């Protein structure tokens, strides 16, 4: 890694000799070199495939109550064990995974996109926009979440339900709420990165060559500000999965009989001493998701970095 700079002149010298690879293929070539990122893609693919088609392989009802099989550990009948109503945890993990992963990714995307846009605009603006956007960020940071959530349920639940149906409406609302209430740290981080990067020599150089602000941001500043964003993205996924379960306690999430990973983890906590398997599986699944997203993010950044050669 440290010695990789040496290879740089030779590669830059070579291009005329062979057909220039398209940027996409070039990125993919670099990404492949990143072994952890590749493994992570595989892990994430297995998780996603598991929750999508797992129901076909393991067609057990998620709400079959069986008092004779309360709190059993993993067995052939119940590979992931059962909960305190004797419901099959594997089936519940599969079903819940769809919601948790979808909510986790969508909410992360919402939070990061809003955060990056607001942060970039504030960071580039030298006038009025910066204080206004920072005021907005401060406002969102200070809003007390619990009363706000109750207010949102009260104001919007029924109309969303009417437009998008029960499941769709709830999903949209959860994603909007989690994403909409968690973009502020991303915005502040991006703005801080922009403040320092926009004064750097290489940006000055590009600017003096007449690059438009948009070009400056896209090619020069943003790629160098992505580090914290990727970290934030992976943290957001786990935070969103957990937050979803808190929301269902407020009656804002999915109905109480629908299992999600965060909810399974919460329900398991009072039985941790006798039924650790109940917590282990959802906890492990969240951990694996976060881990793989982070490594994929690292891999992508390294692959996208124009100055880095592997």
């Amino acid at each position, binding site marked *: *890694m440290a010695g990789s*700079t040496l290879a740089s002149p030779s590669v830059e010298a070579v291009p005329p000799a062979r057909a220039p690879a398209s940027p996409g293929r070039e990125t993919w070539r670099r990404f492949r070199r990143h072994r952890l990122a590749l493994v992570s893609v595989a892990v994430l693919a297995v998780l996603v495939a598991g929750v999508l088609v797992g129901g076909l392989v393991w067609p057990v009802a998620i709400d079959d109550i069986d008092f004779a099989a309360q709190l059993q550990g993993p067995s052939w009948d119940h590979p992931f064990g059962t909960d305190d109503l004797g419901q099959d945890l594997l089936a519940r993990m599969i079903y819940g995974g769809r919601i948790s992963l979808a909510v986790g990714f969508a909410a992360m995307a919402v939070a990061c996109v809003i955060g990056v846009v607001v942060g970039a605009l504030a960071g580039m603006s*030298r006038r009025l926009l910066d*204080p206004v956007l*920072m*005021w907005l*960020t*401060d*406002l969102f*940071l*200070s*809003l*007390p979440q*619990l*009363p*706000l959530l*109750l*207010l949102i*349920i*009260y104001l919007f639940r029924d109309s969303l339900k009417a437009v998008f149906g029960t499941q769709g409406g709830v999903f949209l609302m959860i994603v909007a709420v989690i994403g909409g209430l968690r973009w*502020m*740290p991303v915005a*502040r*981080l991006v703005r*801080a*990165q922009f*403040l*320092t990067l926009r*004064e*750097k*020599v*290489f940006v000055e150089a590009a600017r003096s060559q007449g690059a438009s602000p948009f070009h400056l941001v896209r090619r020069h500043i943003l790629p*160098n*500000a*992505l*580090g*914290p964003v*990727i*970290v934030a993205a*992976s*943290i957001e996924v*786990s*935070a969103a999965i*957990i937050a979803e379960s808190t929301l269902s306690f407020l009656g804002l999430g999915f109905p109480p009989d629908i299992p999600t990973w*965060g909810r399974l*983890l*919460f329900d398991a*906590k009072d039985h*941790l*001493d006798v039924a650790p398997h109940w917590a282990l599986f959802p*906890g492990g699944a*969240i*951990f694996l*998701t*976060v*881990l793989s997203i*982070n490594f994929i993010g690292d891999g992508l950044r390294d692959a996208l*970095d124009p*100055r*880095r050669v592997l």
Partner: protein
Amino acid sequence: MGAYILRRLLIAVPSLLGISLILFVVLAMAPGDPFGELASNPNVPPSVRAALRVKFGLDDPIFTRYLRWLWAMLHGDWGFSFASRVNVDALILQRLPTTLFVVGSSQVLALLVAVPVGLYAARRPYSLADQVANTLAFVGFSLPTFFTGLLFILLFSIKLGWLPFVYQADLPGSGLAWVWANVRQAIMPVAVLGFFQAASYTRYVRASALDVARLDYVTTARAKGLTEGTVTRRHIARNALIPVVTLVALQIPAVFGGAIVTEQIFRIPGIGSLLIDAMLANDTPVVMAVTFVFAGLVILFNLVADLLYGWLDPRIALR
């Protein structure tokens, strides 16, 4: 510089006013009422609830209530709690020391762990030490604090019997024994919060150190023949700290606001538990006061962060 600070502080006044208005409207419109618990007591006639609402002015228009609140606030009157009928400032002051102690020490702990670990991990990315630090960090933020808190209690209080899990704000006694008792009961909550916070800090420090490490001026510093340690300390750390400063500035208001979940688990009588109790009881004056102070701190530390950026990277121009 002085002019800049003065101008920012002047802007802060209308910002805070605007935020307070929005906070007040959100709280006033949020569903629920402070006398809900009376509704499930068949001995209390509904007319009593209605009379209480009128007496506490809950049925007046929102804007009237806001102006009344603002006017009282300008006179230094923070209102009184519906639940305990005590002045709000007295309630907050009673809770503040505990929260500052517990949440403050956890933040310090998190920084003491995260900055060196993150920088070390970034010096040798993908080395064994880096992988271990990464994995621990991922475990740290994929497990919510309600879960780690419970794990700690099961292990250290119930299995081993080493630490108490009910926090007492005003332990009797004095001298070294008293100090030790206070430290002992704070170990678990501080560790739970600190571990969670350190996990994300570590990742941020590592990521931004890596970002900075490949910028040209670091290469230049290396080319000048400076040792790796000097480069890290003098050139990388300073710039890599910008995201950390941002995050810490985001977290300091939280030191005042308390940690709701952790305070609940360990029964710490701090601002966080005051806030959640007040929210669940719809005790609006308390929620309003705490969030208003919180908003003030958010604005203040945003300004402080901006000033620190200028100090960390003198090329950032503050206008």
